[in-house]
């Protein structure tokens, strides 16, 4: 709020030909502060991964940024030339991916993969980079790093590979780490370990983290603030406490209700949000959630709600919560 390291303003991303673009992100607004962990939640297709990829300028070649801005420490990234981007990626902004099984090159030793950004960004010699890579492996909790550094990825377990990914991403001590569902492919005990590791690293390096997930457990565990996304927009923005205790947006409420809890009765049927996420080529007008919304109002299918402050540090884009609804109706 006071010192954002990354600000995404009204970001629009479209797929397909210039003449018939399909909008995937339709004005995303979010910001993350130095040393803060921002959770990005939503169903598949809500645009959370795409926002992260856009922030790294790693969009697939069929997609392009059609509007808005991405500001990292005052530098505009949306129009940044490739050379400058290469100097930023892995150095000041890093990313880890969902699938640790595929995110490491199978024919390259893990040590060489960790050393690569060190050599590029910090200009270390082969020997110095190797020494740093061993330190990195050690710091992410891989036992026997002197031996492990010469391993190929197939010689490691999924959890270890994700640790290697984190070691690689944090090798140059970046200021921002984007983690795209880093624990989805891991089993629960390993998930907890990886989240602990991320939190420890966040403290140690004063690291800002954007964590993308559809798991509220992960959010509760690690995030300071949460942005809920739907249909290519942020629909609710809240501190992690407020999101669980004072949920505002009908979609967030629906998501939370659909999360199983330990106190739940055994025969209890898990509530679901009716319908499915609309396809990006077929987004309803107005608020994209209105066809599935239990609190639909007449204006919802005509006007797009904007994020409005409903409580300190909590903003919601919903006509049913809007203080301006009297004027709009």
């Amino acid at each position, binding site marked *: 709020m006071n010192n954002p390291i990354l600000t995404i303003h009204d970001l629009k991303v479209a797929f397909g030909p210039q003449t018939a673009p399909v909008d995937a992100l339709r004005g995303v607004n979010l910001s993350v502060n130095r040393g803060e962990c921002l959770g990005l939640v939503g169903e598949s297709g809500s645009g959370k991964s795409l926002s992260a990829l856009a922030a790294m300028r790693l969009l697939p070649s069929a997609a392009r940024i059609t509007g808005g801005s991405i500001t990292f420490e005052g530098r505009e990234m949306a129009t940044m030339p490739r050379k400058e981007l290469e100097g930023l*990626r892995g150095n000041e902004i890093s990313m880890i991916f969902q699938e640790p099984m595929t995110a490491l090159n199978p024919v390259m030793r893990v040590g060489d993969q960790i050393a690569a950004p060190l050599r*590029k960004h910090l200009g270390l010699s082969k020997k110095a980079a190797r020494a740093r890579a061993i330190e990195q492996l050690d710091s992410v909790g891989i036992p026997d790093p002197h031996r492990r550094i010469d391993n190929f990825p197939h010689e490691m377990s999924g959890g270890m590979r994700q640790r290697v990914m984190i070691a690689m991403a944090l090798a140059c001590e970046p200021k921002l780490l984007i983690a795209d569902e880093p624990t989805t492919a891991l089993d629960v005990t390993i998930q907890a370990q990886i989240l602990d590791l991320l939190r420890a690293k966040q403290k140690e390096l004063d690291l800002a983290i954007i964590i993308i997930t559809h798991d509220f457990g992960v959010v509760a565990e690690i995030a300071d603030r949460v942005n809920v996304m739907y249909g290519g927009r942020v629909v609710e923005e809240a501190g992690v406490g407020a999101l669980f205790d004072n949920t505002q947006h009908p979609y967030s409420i629906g998501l939370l209700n659909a999360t199983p809890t330990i106190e739940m009765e055994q025969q209890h049927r898990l509530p679901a949000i009716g319908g499915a996420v609309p396809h990006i080529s077929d987004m309803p007008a107005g608020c994209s959630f209105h066809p599935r919304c239990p609190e639909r109002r007449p204006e919802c299918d005509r006007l797009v709600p904007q994020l409005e402050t409903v409580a300190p540090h909590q903003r919601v884009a919903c006509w049913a919560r809007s203080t301006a609804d009297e004027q709009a109706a």
Partner: protein
Amino acid sequence: MLDRIFITFAIIFLSMLAILVVFGDFIQPHDPLLQNFRARDQGPSATYWLGTDDFGRDVFSRILEGSRLSMTIGLVAPLIAAIVGITMGTTAAYFGGWTERIVSRVTDMMMSFDPLLLGVLVVALLGPGIVNLSIAISFALIPSFIRLSRASALSVRQEGYVDAAIAMGRPSYSTILRHVLPNIAGPLVVMTTIWIGSAIRMEATLSFIGLGAQPPAPSWGNIVRYGVQNIFGSPLPALFAGLAITLTVLSFNILGDALRDRLDPDRTVR
């Protein structure tokens, strides 16, 4: 089991050939260009191991000398084609968009000609000769290398580690070189091996129709060419040069197949 015998045979044959090509000068019993009119069209003997042709030249020495040219073109042309083709194919796959569209359409255009016809076309434009022959053959092989490397690189491009490498700030050329190429090397090595055999065959074909090595310099192709003209004088030059071509091409094909069985992770080795 039979496979193993063939593979062993191919490796032994090719190793022998390699030795003959490299040390040919010391092994040749006669000067391959020396004519001897008192010894025309002879059969095999202690002096002339594989007989002589209608100029009285030693067939064994000529085939040996010809092997150097055939093998040089057979190795150099696919190698040039591999370097150019793989560069174009991986670049196209990696960057996508217009680069890929243009490269693909050009490949389709080149593919629509038979490689041999393409070779004839290039030689017709540049004139016959060894260098032009190599250019012609590599030109004919380039589209297949583009196509294979592009297809393989496209699937590797989707892998997480390529995105991860880019996310770590690795520049494009380095990502292609360190992450894409090593992961598509298997099929490319197999194809290069098989195309070496084909390049030798194409050299022979083009020389046979008079577009390759010019006499008196021997190549396998033109030994067959002039041997066939004199087939009733002595069938031996055409026969043995043809045999050399057949065995060499066959050996490279067997070797290529064997490599494929070992390098392709989707095929289990029997």
